[in-house]
């Protein structure tokens, strides 16, 4: 080929986007079929309700308010997905993001409600707690060869019980309910500043700088991975651990550092949610919050790119909240988690999809090349 033809199908980004859209479509389709099976008559309305989320409101002001709330919950999800994809670039599957997120919630709420620290200190504490948990997984991997997935799951459960215990302490837990007390009334300095952002969303009070912070973090992660020496080393370690060692990168240190950063990202995600005051921790919760797991869905749906994650995080959060709008006397909100998990499952096929597409393109090229050869009368070499 002398001249490179421009073909959008050849672009890696376009291929990823196409693959992601197919995954979404597949997930929605199967979700719709499930709704049909449960009760055919309202299935179509239900799937539309999920997709519409806040668009169901007719008034613009109300839409803006709920858009704001969706974004508030998108920020932590984006952080969890950054955590997952950052670790994945170094070859580790950070299913422990869920536990690191819980650790972040524990630390941030403890600092906010018990120690009455200001928001930035609470956020630092959350990052430190997440990083610590990540470091344990990383160290177990490098020094003891423990599978990161399994140690991650174990730490998720351990952290859940620790958090429930810590946040049940008097002064943190509301004695009248299973929830922690509200930050807004008890420790206002711990609330994230709003900097006027709430005005954009019809004065929704949970809108804070959490949203821009999460987006900035996504950009920072992108820059680190693609533009810096550190990112070059991390990716080299992920692609080929032995080559990284061969050229003198501190491969073990890099793995632990990566897991620490991943943990810090997930932990920070928790502080970006709880420090807005939008919700409290439920101390009797008996399963690990889905935020970290959904982060996995987002990371893969976003094609493992930080920028793709921003869009994917919004989408997943959008349908998750939309799930609450189905007719609950017939369907249930978990239909959204079903769709998200279907999307991850389909994401596992992305590699296959791209390979098929590349093979198809190559075959097309070859056919074209063979034709050209025949015309010239030469043999292909």
């Amino acid at each position, binding site marked *: 080929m002398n001249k490179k033809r421009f073909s959008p199908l050849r672009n890696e980004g376009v291929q990823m986007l196409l693959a992601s859209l197919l995954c979404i479509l597949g997930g929605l389709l199967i979700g719709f079929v499930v709704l049909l099976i449960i009760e055919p008559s309202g299935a179509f309305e239900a799937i539309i309700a999920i997709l519409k989320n806040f668009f169901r409101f007719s008034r613009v002001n109300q839409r803006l308010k709920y858009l704001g709330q969706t974004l508030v919950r998108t920020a932590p999800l984006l952080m969890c997905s950054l955590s997952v994809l950052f670790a994945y670039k170094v070859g580790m599957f950070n299913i422990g993001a869920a536990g690191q997120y819980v650790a972040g919630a524990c630390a941030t709420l403890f600092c906010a409600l018990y120690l009455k620290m200001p928001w930035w200190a609470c956020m630092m504490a959350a990052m430190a707690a997440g990083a610590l948990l990540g470091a344990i997984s990383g160290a177990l991997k490098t020094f003891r060869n423990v599978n990161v997935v399994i*140690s991650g799951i*174990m730490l998720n459960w351990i952290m859940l*019980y620790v958090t429930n215990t810590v946040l049940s302490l008097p002064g943190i837990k509301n004695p009248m309910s299973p929830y922690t007390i509200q930050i807004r009334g008890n420790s206002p300095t711990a609330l994230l500043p709003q900097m006027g952002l709430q005005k954009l969303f019809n004065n929704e009070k949970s809108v804070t700088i959490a949203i821009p912070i999460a987006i900035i973090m996504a950009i920072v992660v992108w820059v680190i991975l693609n533009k810096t020496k550190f990112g070059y080393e991390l990716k080299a370690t992920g692609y080929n651990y032995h080559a990284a060692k061969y050229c003198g990168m501190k491969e073990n240190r890099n793995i632990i550092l990566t897991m620490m950063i991943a943990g810090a990202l997930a932990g920070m995600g928790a502080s970006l949610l709880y420090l807005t005051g939008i919700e409290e921790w439920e101390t009797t919760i008996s399963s690990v919050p889905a935020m970290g797991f959904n982060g996995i869905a987002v990371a893969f749906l976003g094609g493992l790119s930080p920028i793709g994650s921003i869009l994917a995080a919004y989408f997943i959060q959008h349908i998750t909240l939309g799930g609450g709008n189905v007719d609950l006397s017939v369907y249930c909100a978990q239909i959204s*988690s*079903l769709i998200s998990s279907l999307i991850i*499952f389909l994401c596992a096929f992305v590699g*296959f999809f791209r390979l098929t597409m590349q093979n198809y393109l190559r075959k097309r090229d070859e056919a074209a090349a063979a034709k050209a050869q025949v015309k010239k009368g030469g043999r292909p070499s």
Partner: protein
Amino acid sequence: MILLTQYTLLFASVLMLVALGGCFSERSGVINIGLEGIMVIGALGGALVMKFLPVEFGGAPVMVLATLIASALSGMIFSLLLAVAAINFKADQTITGTAMNMLATAAATVAVKAMNTAASGGSDVSSDIIYTRARDTFIVRFGTFEFNWFMLFALIALVLSYIILYKLRFGLRLRACGEHPQAADSVGINVYKMRYAGVLISGILGGIGGIVYITAGVSSWKFENGVAGFGFLALAVMIFGQWKPLKIALAALLFGFFRALGNVYTGFDILKNLNLPSTVYNMLPYIISLIVLALTSKNSLAPKAEGIPYDKGSR
């Protein structure tokens, strides 16, 4: 003490069944992170039979067998997701497994809620299935010790697994596929078929493990909670047991003991006097498994080719 033994044996049975399932899958070369999800779906299948099959219909033997078969089948069908993705489409086995775990809990919740909602006309939107009477048929009482038929099934599964893996032609071929699929292929063994067999067997055993787990101590189950990481504990048991049935059995007893402590520690004065919060006992199995893994994973005896999709072309 009897209670502790009883729970230890029950939880050990669960861990052993599921870990043996994992063993078959990994020995064939497929990492099965999705065991947790397989357990949930197996539990759902079994629980539905327990709910809807009248106890009067054939009594205990029919109930026990029908439940067993239903969970085995549900687990097996669900494991097809892993088989198809990992073997035919060469998908990443970790992502697939993780997706299966999330999918299983979500699907089970949606299914049970839909069922409850429809049955109650919208007043019951819980994800619980109650099976008090059916559960009683699983149990034979010797004094205060409650013998559960599934303990026997676990023992049978252990013996069969050992024979299948080490004495039968099938086992030799299965293990070859997990160690060196190219070698197996070169002597005419169909690697894809063997891996399917490995994954499906893990589905059967995982499914049975699921129903034993949810009927172990309680007579109703809330499916929103999945199986609380038990599938992963079973993976830890499998690793600790070095992918060998007999060692897996011993590892399962150890882990089962620590899990059982959480259920019955109040019955022991020494433990009660320690005054530890109950969450400590809840955490115990997970902490123990982390420690055990840290001590034993260094020189892993994992099948060499596990996790690597087999591609006939690359040799």
